[in-house]
Structure formats: C-alpha cells, structure tokens
C-alpha cells in the first residue's frame, strides 16, 4: 500500500538540510513502528520519496513524502504514532493513499509551489531594508509587466540566461507579505529567492535575503485536462 504523508517543518528546523531530514524520517518511522518497505539488494534501505527539497533557511506548512507500507495502518493511527515521536518543529498533518507505481510518485508529479515571504523580524531589520521591501511590494506590477525577465543561471555547462517570467505564475502583495506561486519540479523550477532578487534588481533596490522568512504553503501537481493546465495540491491526489 502506497501512502503520502504531509508534514510541516517550522522554527529552527529551517537550518536542517534535505538529506538530514530524510535521515530524520527514517528514524522517525522506526520510532513510530510504522512498517515500511525496504529496497532489495546488498544494502537495503527504506523506500522513501520526497516531493520537493526545501532550501536551508526556509520553513514549510506542506511537505510531502511517499512511502510503501508493508502493513496497512489507518490515517488516525499513523498520525498519532508519528506525532508522538516527532521533534519539536515537525508535525505530520495528513496521510492519504496514492496510486501504485510511477503515477503516484510524489517527486515526478511536482509542477508548482506556493510561498509566502516576509521580513522575519521587523524590529531587528534596519529601516533601509524595510524601505526596500515596501518599495518592492509597491511596484510588483511594474516588474510583472515585462514579457521577458532574463536571469543568469549557473548550469552544468557554465552560465546561461533564462527567461523566468513564464515560471512566475502569481506574485502579489498580501498585507506586509509577498505571495508567490512559481513553477517547481524537474521540468522547470524557480526558487523564490531568485524571483525576489530579480525583482529587486529590476527596481534598483538592494536588501539581503537573510532578513526574509520564506514559508512554503503548498505543492502542486499539474493535472492537464483537454490541454488545459490545472494545478492540484499533492495532498488531494489520493485514491
């Protein structure tokens, strides 16, 4: 039985890297006594697939992880057992059953993600940076009217220019924060920081990224119907 867990990762756990979170969940599954399938071969390991790695420094309300269960377990039972052995900062919020095989593979489904960005600690942030942030929020429209937004990306074959405009699906102000919906996954991926940097550059503003808190709010799969793109949260793709 293949299932998808949804969990949140908040607070200091923003400093834990993706690989360490994978190791964390392997241990957590054993602590909770959840019977997960292992790979075959010389050195068996738990089969786990994470939807979209979270950058160090960012938090998330919505991380997805797929596993295969040897012994089926109810959603309530799984959540209660896991949450009784979680470290502070991580909560498992949902479990759904998903399709077997590739069709249900979290990582290959990812197409977009939502982020909310704001100044982490306004009191400790210099006036100058707060001003830049407000300026940026006020002029998002100007930035988005461009049909072509070139950024220089470092790829395998050196530097290359990429147009990130099509990768920004939504970018607007909500009170003092910025809401961002960007393409994500293996097909096309835009990091929220890259969008913000590009916007700041365009508006001739400057501000360090570390004063911002970036929280991921949703991860989507693209379910095309009749050639029309439709984004559905990964957590709603159960069977």
């Amino acid at each position, binding site marked *: 039985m293949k299932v998808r867990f949804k969990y949140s990762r*908040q*607070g*200091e*756990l923003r*400093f*834990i*890297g993706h690989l*360490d*979170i994978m*190791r*964390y969940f*392997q*241990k*957590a*599954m*054993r*602590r909770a006594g959840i019977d997960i399938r*292992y790979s075959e071969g*010389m*050195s*068996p390991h738990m089969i786990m697939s994470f939807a979209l790695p979270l950058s*160090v*420094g960012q938090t998330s309300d919505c991380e997805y992880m797929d596993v295969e269960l040897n012994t089926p377990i109810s959603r309530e039972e799984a959540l209660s057992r896991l949450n009784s*052995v979680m*470290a*502070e*900062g991580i909560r498992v919020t949902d479990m759904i059953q998903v399709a077997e095989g590739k069709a249900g593979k979290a990582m290959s489904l990812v197409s977009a993600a939502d982020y909310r960005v704001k100044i*982490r600690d306004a009191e*400790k942030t210099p006036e100058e940076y707060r001003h830049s942030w407000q300026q940026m929020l006020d002029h998002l429209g100007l930035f988005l009217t461009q049909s072509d937004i070139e950024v220089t990306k470092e790829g395998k074959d050196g530097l290359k220019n990429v147009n990130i405009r099509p990768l920004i699906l939504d970018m607007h102000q909500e009170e003092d924060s910025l809401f961002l919906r960007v393409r994500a996954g293996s097909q096309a991926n835009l990091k929220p920081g890259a969008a913000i940097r590009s916007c700041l550059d365009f508006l001739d503003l400057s501000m*360090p990224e*570390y*004063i911002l808190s970036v929280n991921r709010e949703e991860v989507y799969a693209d379910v095309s119907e009749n050639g029309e793109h439709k984004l559905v949260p990964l957590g709603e793709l159960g069977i």
Partner: protein
Amino acid sequence: MKKLAVDDSILLSVDKPARYIGSELNSVVKDKNKIDIRFAMCFPDVYEIGMSHLGIQILYDMFNRREDVWCERVYSPWTDMDRVMREKNIRLFALESQDPILDFDFLGITIQYEMCYTNILQILDLSGIPLHAQDRSDNCPIVIGGGPCAYNPEPLAPFFDMFYIGEGETQYNTLFDLYRKMKKEGKTRQEFLRQASHIPGIYVPSLYQVSYNEDGTLRQFMPLYDDVPARVKKQIVMDLTDAVYPEKPVVPYIKATQDRVVLEVQRGCIRGCRFCQAGMIYRPTRQRNVKVLEKHADSMLKSTGYEEINLSSLSTSDYTQLSGLVDYLVEKYGKEHINIALPSLRIDAFSLDIMSKVQDVRKSSLTFAPEAGSQRLRNIINKGLTEEDILGGAAQAFRGGWSHVKLYFMLGLPQENDDDRRDIAHLANKIAAVFYEEVPKEERHGKCQITVSTSFFVPKPFTPFQWAVMYSPGDYLGFAATVNHEIKAQLNHKSIKYNWHQAEETVLEGFLARGDRRCASVIEKVYRSGQIFDAWTECFHYENWLNAFDETGVDPDFYTKRPRSLDELLPWDFIDIGVSREFLKREWQHAMEGKVTPNCREQCSGCGARVFGGGVCYEGQI
C-alpha cells in the same frame, strides 16, 4: 519558537548550521527559573565528534534526572563560526537554552585527547571566562575537567578550577549538593573550592604547591593546607548494572561520527597491554548484566530509531555473555533491518562465528591489532597474541568469505629495532599468502586486500611504559620508511597498502601527555597565536608549537626524549588509580625481560585494583 543566540545571516553563512541550534530529539529543556544549578557540558571538538561521545550522554541523562539541575551541551564552534563570533563579539552559548555559558554555574569539559587542549582555551575565551582560574570572579562558572586526560591534569592545571578523577556517575551528586548548599549560604568561590577538595576524586589544582629540582625534575608536590588531601583517589562505579544509563540518548540531525545506539557492555579490560592507558585506569574490569543490557538496547532503539547498535567496550570478546546478547539482538532485530556493530573483537573462531551472524561478510573488513610485527616485541608490550593466532584467524576469516583485512601496528615502542619493523611487512605478506593458499581461485571475490596502518607510540601516564623515551619526528618517519621499503620488497606487495600517522603530532601528544604545570604556558602561547583544532590535519600547524617552545623556553625534549629513572617523582603520582606504582614498575621490568603477564581471568597479577572490592578480581569468588 525559541530565540537563537546567532542570527540567520550568520547561520546561513557557516557550514552545517545545525551544529549550533540545539532542538535535537531527546534533548532536555527545562525552565531555568525553577532550577538551582545550570551545568554546561562540553566536548572541546566539533559537534559531530562531541555528539558521538558516550560519557557525555550518560552524565547528561544523570544530571537532568535531578530536578534542581539543568545540564546543557556545548561544543567547539568550527573555525568559520569561531571567526564570526570573535568579529561580532558573540559569546559562546549552550545549545538547549542558547544562553551564554558565562551565566552557568558549571562548565564541565571532557578531556579525551591531548590535541584538543587548545580548543579548551577556545571554549573559555569565547565564553568570556578568564583563561586562568586565579583570575575568575565569584560569578564565573566553575570550570571542571574530566575524562582520561584528567589522569595527568598538570599541563592544564592553571586553566581549571577543579578536575574530577574517575567515572562521573559516582561523585557529581555530592558535588552538586555541596554547591547548592554553599551557594544558598552565599559562600565565595574559594570557600567552595576548598570544601570540594574534600570530596573523594575532586582535585583542585590551586590548593597544591609544586617545586622542582635543579635538573628540572619534580621535587615536591603537596597540598597547601592540612585539610586538603595529599592523594586524590580515582572514583569508579562498582555496580555497573544498576548504574544510570541513558534510555533516551540525544539524536542529532546531522550525521555524527557515531551515528548509532551505543551499548556499553563492560568497562575496563582484562588484557594488560603495557602501552594502554585505558587498560590500566579503568581497572578492574566490570561487566553489565546481560538482561539489563537487553532492556537498555530495547529502550534506546525504540527512543532513537537508529538502525544500528554498537556493542562497545575495550575488548568486547572478553564480555562473558556476548554470545547470548548477540543472539537476543539478532533474533529480535534482524528482521527489522537493524545492524549490530561489533568493534574491538579479537579475531578467533568464536568471534568470527559471532560476526558472521551479524554482518554481511562481503561488505565488511576484518581488523587485527597485533600492534607489533615480531613475537619478541609483542611479548614486550604484553599483547598476548601469537603469529599462530593471527594467521589461524586470518585463514578462518578468508575461508568464511572475508577478503579485506586491516592491520594496526605501533612504531617507536620500547626496545624496538629495525628487525621488528621489517617483521610488520613480513607478517602482512604471510597473511596475504594465507589468502592465496586457503581460497581456491574460483571462489575469490577479487583480490585479497591488506591495509597496514602504523601509528607512533606515545607513552601515557599510569601505564608500565610511562617511563619510556620518545623520538624526534625525523626518527619516526625513518621507522615508517623502513616498513614501507620492506613491504615493497614482499612477494605479495600488490595486495598490501600502507598508511602511517603524522610524526609531528605524535611528539606534541607525547609532550602534553607527560607534561607538568610548566607546559601550560606553551599551550596558552599556541592558542594566542590563533591555533585551534590541532586534532584536524587541515588546522594543525607545527610551526606555532615550535615558536611557542622558543618563546616560553620550555624544552619539549625534556618531556619526550629524556630517560626517566624509575624513582623519579612524576607529575601525576599524586593520583591514586588503585593500580600501584609497584605493579607498573614490575611490568616495566617484565617488559625489558620480554616476559608476558597473564590476563586477569587467567591469573591475578596483584596490580592493586582489588582494593575496589569487585569486578573481575572477585569473579567466581562470591
């Protein structure tokens, strides 16, 4: 959400920020307003090393069981963080509360190896604690040192308020009770230190006076006051079975060096190798009851989720219930993909049988530690291992499917000559030959691989070799060259790989291991020159040490290369480890005669550890 001591801008700019945030699973957070004693427990090396240390996990658990104590952890900030903290004037903080160490009642530092001494000064300095104990005011934490290097605390004496000699499980409660009482009474630091010196195992260096002879040797070492004990007695737990053991060890997010459950099956070693300090200071050997170990294993695996458990001790094959314990673990956890690690096994039929039960033969390599190449020298060091044992063990291992063997040796041992060194190559060659004889061509999985590693011998206090002379770095490299040259001349040289240890570090380790109070100025000088993390090759700079010797006028050769007479007063002689000086002398003389001493289970050799009234000394007698 807790407040971190360091800003995001810094944490996102250093390597592995998780080293500095705490919040690990099973870490303990208390309300600081409801406790009387705040204890910062420090391992003066980088987080991943410090988090792998069992002793701290035991004491962390034990201290935090007390309602009036909150024990937190602190490690050496890596060089990148160290730099930022100095630049921005950020005080060193404890992981759990993120509060400055300066706010604590105690700073406890475990001293596991000599090459961390400069890091101890880093910890003090970054905390804002004066390096010299005599400069500390009443509201500074009490700085207390422990661990194996505390058995010769003298080179560090000026930097510590007190040392704890022995195993922490025994006297900390007494110390805390005294501290709490005296703090409430508003007593001064000096008054507390004086009272604490009456607790068995507590050594307060400022209460002792040292004088030297004209030739630089120690003349006298004595307490300044009548009420301060002249000898400090090592403290050990006699009932290990019922001693505290952490049921919920702290689990780091980032991968620590020891990324597994550690189950200590026994303490001490029956073998009596003459170079080995652990084999002497942890006497007598004490075992834990197997039923209790099974329970500990269960609760720790459950509370951590680790996928490996390590059966730890100095010589695990000598644990009499090993077979039963392994059977229990294999039976219960084999299906759950939990691996059982068995380091420190002596390679014989019994161990190979156990090892084949717990691990995939093809993945693992076998480790032998003959320590010396020739039988003559193995007898001198009392490594009760014959060439027959080694070759017989290797033959069985090869037949069992192993093809990779690691061999550990020491160079620079007392009485060692070039023939002994060349015998290292010969032994490796014979082992390779055994492979080709024992394993038919069609059954070989690739070539046989023998890795020979040599370290240079460092004489340690409280061993029969505490009187031995050391050599210069050039001499050591010459010894290694002899081995290397001879290996190249062997028939099976293509199957043998040779590594050797750094020579300069060895000499410094030797200098610090048998140093006295005068050596402290060198450590301080080296630290002041910007040197930390001496144990890390990329950070170690020998020139800084050479300059410090020059500037302080301390001659390292006096401590390393000078022959000591057997009746010379040694800086650590005031410590009583139970094992008598007479026994060590006798063992030194037996070594010179090439005479082997039987292990504790074969025959008691009267080392003196019987005074503790238990352990292997009384096995089968009660």
